C-alpha cells in the first residue's frame, strides 16, 4: 500500500504523480468572496435617511390638499347667489338642533362660506349613517320630487352626477349646494386622513430612540 497516495510521503507513485500534474489545472483558484452588506447596518442607515424624506413628503401632501381646498372653496357667482337667496337656511335650522355653536350668530360678512364649512364639518362629524335619518331639508325636498331630479348621488355617498344640474327650476340651486357640501365633506375627510398620517409619522419619529428626539436633534413634532 503506497503511502504517497495517502499523505504524499514515501516513494512517489508515477501514475499518481502523472494524474496530479494532469488534473492540477482544474484545482481551486483563490477568488475573493463577495459577501453581502450587513443587514442590521443597512436597515438602520435606511431608516435614518428616509425619516426626513417621509416627513417632507407628508408635508407636501398636506399642502397640496390645502391648496385644493382653497381653490374649491373659493366663492363663485353661483355659490354666492345661492347663499344670498337663503337656500341654506333649512340646513342651519337642522344644525341648530344638535350643536350649540351653531346657534351663535354668524359674524363673518361673507357668511355663506362659513356656513358651508360648518355644515360640511357637522356632516362629517356625525358620519354618513346619521345623514340617513336627518337629512338637510333640501335633500328631503329633492326626494319628494323624483321627476325634477332623476339621480342625486350613489347610495354610498359618492358625489352626484353633474348632469342633474341642468334639471332647472327651483331645485337647481339646492342641488348645487348639496354637491358642494358632499365635495367639501370628502375634502375634509381627506384632510383629516392626511393629518392622521402626519401624526403617525411624527409619532414614529419620536418613538424610535425613546428619547423624544428626532434624528437631527430637533424637537419632535407635536
Amino acid at each position, binding site marked *: *500500500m503506497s503511502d504517497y*497516495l*495517502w*499523505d*504524499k510521503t514515501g516513494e512517489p507513485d508515477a*501514475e*499518481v504523480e502523472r*494524474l*496530479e500534474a*494532469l*488534473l*492540477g*489545472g*482544474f*484545482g*481551486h*483558484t*483563490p*477568488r475573493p*468572496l*463577495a*459577501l*453581502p452588506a*450587513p443587514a442590521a447596518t443597512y436597515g438602520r442607515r435606511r431608516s435614518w435617511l428616509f425619516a426626513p424624506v417621509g416627513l417632507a413628503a407628508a408635508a407636501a401632501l398636506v399642502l397640496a390638499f390645502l391648496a385644493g381646498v382653497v381653490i374649491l372653496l373659493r366663492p363663485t357667482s353661483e355659490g354666492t347667489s345661492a347663499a344670498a337667496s337663503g337656500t341654506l337656511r333649512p340646513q342651519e335650522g337642522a344644525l341648530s338642533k344638535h350643536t350649540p355653536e351653531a346657534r351663535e350668530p354668524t359674524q363673518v360678512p361673507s357668511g355663506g362660506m362659513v356656513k358651508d364649512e360648518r355644515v360640511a364639518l357637522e356632516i362629517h362629524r356625525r358620519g354618513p349613517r346619521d345623514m340617513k335619518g336627518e337629512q338637510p331639508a333640501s335633500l328631503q325636498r329633492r326626494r319628494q320630487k323624483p321627476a325634477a331630479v332623476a339621480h342625486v348621488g350613489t347610495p354610498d355617498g359618492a358625489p352626484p352626477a353633474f348632469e342633474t344640474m341642468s334639471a332647472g327650476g327651483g331645485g337647481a340651486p339646492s342641488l348645487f349646494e348639496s354637491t358642494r357640501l358632499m365635495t367639501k365633506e370628502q375634502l375634509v375627510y381627506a384632510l383629516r386622513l392626511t393629518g392622521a398620517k402626519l401624526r403617525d409619522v411624527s409619532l414614529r419619529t419620536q418613538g424610535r430612540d425613546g428619547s423624544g428626539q428626532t434624528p437631527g436633534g430637533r424637537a419632535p413634532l407635536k
Partner: protein
Amino acid sequence: MYEVETGNLLFVERRQEAAEVQSPAAALVETARAGDRTAFERLYELYAPLVHGVLLARVPYGEVSDLVQDVFLSAFRKLEALRDPARFGPWVAIIARNRAADFYRRARETEELHESLAQCASHEAEASEVLEIIRALPEAYRETLVLRLVEGMTGPEIAERTGLRPGSVRVNLHRGMALLRKRLGVKGEKV
C-alpha cells in the same frame, strides 16, 4: 471477514477522534457568528478547495467557480443554523452537494460542454477525459479522488475537512485509485 476488521478499525478511530482537540474552524465559526466578516473569509480560504472539489466531482468545470461562491453565500446566511461549529466542513460540503443537485435540476443542457472540450489542446482534452472517468466512478470514490488528485489535499486533510473517518478516506482512496487505473487502462487499450 474484511467487514469485521474494518468495523473494529473504525471503532478504534472513533474513540481516538473523540479525544481529539476541537477543530480550529469552530473558533472561526463562533467569531463569524459574532459578526466578524474576516473570520468568515478565513473559513472561505480554508474550505474553498473542499467545496470546489465536491462540486467538481459533480458539475462541469466552467460552472464550479460561481457555484463555490453561491455555496459560501448560502453558508454565510445560514451560519446560525449550524449546531456544531466544529462540523463546519461537513456542513458546507452538504450544502455543496445539494447545490450541485439543484444545478442539474435547473440546467441539464450544460452536459454538452464536455464534447466541445475535445476540440481543445490535447493536454486539456486528456485532462477532461480523465476527469470524466473520475466522475463516472461511484460517489464515495470520485469525491475523495478529486480532493486528492485535483485539489492536492492529503488523506488526513480530506478526513478532517469532510468529517469522514481517516480509515474510510484511506479505503476510498485506494479502492477508487485501483478502479481508476483499471478504467484508464481499459480506455487506453480501446484507443
